[in-house]
């Protein structure tokens, strides 16, 4: 497509207004697009020029905030991160993310996602509570230890993995790939001592053993987080602990506070008096 060429694309958008509608229906809009136009820009065009009542979430418009997740041509995408041209089609079908309720039009209700996320204690848990409350220094961690969980820190909580997950489709209580992936992220962190708390949560019903490894969550993730891998590694840890063969390493120790640290090499004193 020529950079300046404008093409007309039909956006077939699922609409639902809880004040008026019993069930969702579709409405079509014609949107002018050119090379590089994102689906989000198309939706903003509709809102500004065709129908201001259309509801959708948007914030950063650069694939960072995770607000604009939706089904585009039956696949979960971030609307701001997806160009219209990718689909090689004159018609796009836009629906809200499935496996969560719809508040209005393309706005899904993300409460369950955040409740499940909070339930796995997504933060560093340490026994030295005094240090956690009043930190005096950082914890030491090797690059190899960082690599164990770094991939999973990129989660933006957009919910695309939950929309892709067949278990989340039929089991509302299932913690879902997002929360389970984050449970692994913190269990794999060498600074953390909360593994037993999280294992007790994820080894119950509707949690880690309910994943059937369709791996659609990892395929759909727009940030390359790979929650399916996190879940299988979490499962490995839970199984190893149950069998009593889990290797446990001592938690990361505190680095020397900067004020007490001595340089590894002798730094010469100033030989020239500053003016």
């Amino acid at each position, binding site marked *: 497509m020529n950079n300046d060429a404008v093409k007309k694309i039909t956006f077939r958008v699922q609409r639902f207004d809880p004040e008026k509608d019993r069930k969702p229906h579709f409405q079509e809009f014609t949107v002018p697009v050119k090379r590089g136009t994102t689906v989000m820009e198309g939706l903003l065009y509709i809102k500004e020029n065709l129908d201001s009542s259309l509801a959708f979430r948007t914030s950063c418009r650069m694939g960072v905030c995770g607000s604009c997740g939706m089904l585009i041509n039956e696949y979960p995408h971030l609307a701001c991160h997806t160009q219209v041209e990718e689909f090689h089609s004159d018609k796009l079908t836009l629906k809200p993310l499935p496996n969560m309720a719809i508040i209005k039009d393309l706005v899904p209700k993300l409460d369950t996602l955040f409740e499940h996320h909070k339930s796995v204690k997504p933060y560093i848990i340490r026994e030295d509570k005094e240090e956690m409350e009043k930190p005096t220094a950082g914890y030491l961690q090797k690059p190899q230890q960082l690599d164990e969980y770094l991939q999973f820190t990129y989660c933006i909580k957009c919910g695309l993995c939950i929309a892709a997950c067949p278990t989340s489709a039929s089991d509302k209580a299932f913690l879902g790939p997002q929360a389970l992936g984050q449970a692994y992220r913190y269990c794999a962190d060498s600074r953390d001592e909360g593994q037993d708390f999280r294992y007790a949560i994820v080894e119950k019903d509707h949690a880690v053993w309910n994943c059937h490894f369709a791996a659609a969550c990892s*395929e759909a993730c727009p940030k390359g987080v790979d929650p399916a891998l996190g879940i299988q590694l979490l499962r490995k840890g839970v199984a190893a602990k149950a069998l009593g063969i889990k290797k446990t390493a001592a938690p990361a120790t505190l680095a020397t506070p900067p004020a007490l640290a001595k340089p590894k090499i002798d730094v010469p004193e100033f030989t020239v008096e500053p003016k």
Partner: protein
Amino acid sequence: MADKGPHQNYLGMWGWVWGGNYKLERYLYLLHRITGLGLLLFGLFHLTVTTIFRVQGEAIWSSTISFLDNPLFRVGEFLVVAAFSYHALNGLRLIIQELGFALGKPVPPIYPFTDAIRRKRAWTLVTLAAIMVLAVAFFIDFTVRGWG
């Protein structure tokens, strides 16, 4: 009058079937479910035939066996062994990978992203190849012995 509340949008069991535009592994999951349910139904049917009809005497047992000895049920038998081959070998792959083995380690997410199961697709393809070999062997066995 609308109910003025959020609309539930769970796909339910349709979410197992609905594969969207996903890749191979999503459809292997679907086939694993279908073959699992198929084998369960076959098990019930098989138990019914070999218990209820058998205890009613030799005449009923013989007439049931002669009724089942036709090409349609031979094709059905082939489908059962093909489904069993798939479910058993894919299940073995799942047991290994679901316990975190043969998946590799986490990698930094550098665009274009890949995920563990697709980086290790060779395992999946080897399993599928073994299933195909078994299915072809069974097919030859069934056709040589005849469908009827």
